[in-house]
């Protein structure tokens, strides 16, 4: 590789002209410019590759229906928003979020008061856990009634279907013997209450 004088390199970089070079370097400068002009500036192409790529693209395009192609074709989307439009947009977005994030079960309001009773004479404590209290065994403790061994709790529940079980002494899950029951998916039974 030819090692040009730094000033000749400046010439090649376009920083100086041939006239700016000292006389003793002009010949070297001219030679450098001649070599540079000889370089093939044409883009490198691989005709066979181009042809194959274009043919493949055509083949794929011809397979897909045009509507589908239009739907799935990636395209650039530019959203230009004037700052003042963000205020109503945010307000509308907030309203939509509130509407969309409402609870799933719509029929509201109607409730029924239910008394749960369990006969568990050996129990030290009994609780009720179910879909109505997020299966939280601390949420709904039963209390002893006047009758020996009888525990009870009274709840007001929304109309609908509920699953539940009694939790005896914080560890034993017991289905309500007085209610229908279904498999809980874990090898036990959940009681069912339809209101």
């Amino acid at each position, binding site marked *: 590789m030819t090692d040009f004088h730094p000033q000749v390199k400046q010439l090649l970089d376009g920083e100086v002209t041939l006239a700016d070079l000292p006389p003793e370097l002009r010949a070297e400068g001219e030679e450098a410019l001649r070599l540079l002009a000889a370089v093939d500036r044409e883009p490198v192409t691989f005709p066979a590759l181009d042809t194959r790529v274009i043919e493949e693209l055509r083949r794929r395009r011809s397979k897909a229906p045009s509507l589908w192609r239009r739907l799935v074709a990636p395209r650039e989307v530019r*959203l230009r*928003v004037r700052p003042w*439009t*963000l205020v*109503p*947009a*945010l*307000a*509308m*977005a*907030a309203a*939509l*979020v509130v509407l*969309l*994030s409402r609870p*799933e*079960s*719509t*029929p509201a309001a109607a409730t029924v008061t239910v008394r749960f009773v369990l006969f568990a004479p050996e129990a030290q404590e009994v609780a009720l*856990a179910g*879909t109505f209290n*997020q*299966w*939280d*065994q601390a949420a709904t403790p039963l209390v002893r009634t006047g009758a020996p061994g009888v525990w009870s709790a009274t709840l007001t529940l929304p109309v*609908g*279907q509920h*699953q539940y079980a009694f939790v005896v002494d914080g560890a034993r*899950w017991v289905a309500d013997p007085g209610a*229908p*029951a*279904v*498999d*809980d*998916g*874990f090898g*036990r039974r*959940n009681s*069912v209450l*339809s209101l």
Partner: protein
Amino acid sequence: MKTFGAALLLALVAGSLAAQQDVTARLAGRVSPDIAALVQQLATSAAERGLPVDPLIQKAIEGSAKGVPADRVATALRALSGQLDAAAAALVQAGGAQPDTDAIAAGAFALNAGLDKQNVTALALAGRPANNVAATLRVASTLAAMGVPADEVVELVTQVIASGGSTHEVLGLPAQVMAGVSRGRGVTPAQAAAGLARAAAARAGAPGQNKPKGKP
């Protein structure tokens, strides 16, 4: 128009994030991180298919509250996800509008209680349009949970609706079956249900009209 587009875009993004945060918030401190991640994944997928996510959240919390091992909770969650899909398909089979999440949840519960997809479709057809499909399915699953065979459940509910029974009457069927069991000596829930179905058929003037094939 641009404002509305921007609002819709923001709402969709915010709504999606809010829904994910809602699931995360409900599970926080109640289930293990692995189960929370699985529920998040199943719930996102379910919501995209128009399925309810609440049963999945409830089942995860229930499993953890009961001290069930995580792998078993995961199995139950996947099974429930399958039931939600099956219930939605059964309701779509019945025709009409896209089923709402309430009906799908009730259908999945009915499948868990022992009914099959054909039963769910039949009950959805019977329940429309006068009766609430979700309520009809809840009654059916309660009857099944009481021990009434699936075919008898469908027979009873469809006969009562065909005879002009109101939603209120349909909702009262489990109590009526229970009363029938309590009144008669040795009467099973199936027998009590069959008796009520015969009475409804007689009232409709079309005895046995909806009897399932192969039934006496």
